[in-house]
């Protein structure tokens, strides 16, 4: 049984900021009073499971405007960036973000084990007690980062 407890704290904030800046040259900051429409049909999402030391799922949910901006920043030089390319970029983004976060959060612990990212477009359901939600913003456009505990089933 592990005593590790993950929550969307300042280490998560730092990982979000570092990952967006490093991959997409975007300033992403926590927006404590921000309001984000998690269920919009125009969202893009990427999720990944942490399997060890604690089982949780993390999901990054971007509105279309930010998703396209990030996709262009990473892949724009290579040609037209469509939904498929945006989803690929988001998969790599959450992989990087979660890795950076866990490395900070679990310093000195056994190396964590994470799954392979999944991505999609459209409505993302964040209802339920098992979710911890955080809102961030790039240029005042909000986006979401969610943690779902395994007990949610």
């Amino acid at each position: 049984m592990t005593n590790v407890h993950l929550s969307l704290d300042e280490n998560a904030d730092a990982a979000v900021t570092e990952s967006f800046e490093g991959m997409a040259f975007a300033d992403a900051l926590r927006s404590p009073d921000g309001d984000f429409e998690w269920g919009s049909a125009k969202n893009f999402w990427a999720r990944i499971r942490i399997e060890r030391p604690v089982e949780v799922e993390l999901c990054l949910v971007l509105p279309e405007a930010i998703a396209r901006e990030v996709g262009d920043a990473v892949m724009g030089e290579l040609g037209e960036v469509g939904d498929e390319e945006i989803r690929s970029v988001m998969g790599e983004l959450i992989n990087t973000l979660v890795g950076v976060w866990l490395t900070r959060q679990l310093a000195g612990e056994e190396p964590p084990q994470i799954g392979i990212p999944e991505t999609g477009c459209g409505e993302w359901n964040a209802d339920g007690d098992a979710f911890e939600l955080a809102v961030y913003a790039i240029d005042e456009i909000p986006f979401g980062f969610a943690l779902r505990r395994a007990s949610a089933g």
Partner: protein
Amino acid sequence: MKSVLLVDDSAVARTIIRKCLEILGWDEVSFFEAGHGREALEFLRERTVDLVVTDLNMPEMDGTALLRRIKASPKLTETPVIVVSSLVNDEKQRELTALGAAWVVHKPVSPTKMAEAVESLPAEEAV
């Protein structure tokens, strides 16, 4: 012409690493790509390369297993391997170094971080 094998299940990650190396002057280099460790080993069975750059977290065969297999192979053991991952703490870094990784780059990747990595390579591998 020098050749580099980029191993990552994310095409985006492979593209970012290639762009960083091109910025560093590795534009006259043949880049080959594999989506996971097993595919990389199949490629390396057919031909050798001057450098392997690999992610850790991949399906089929992860980067640690790939590194172990390369260093255990008499044919491949001299091939330098740079590991690129966001998920590397001190313990993992020690493990990778002990297995023979030439350098470990922490994601997000940047030209500066890749420059440190390639400068660590033996002189004959430099472009």
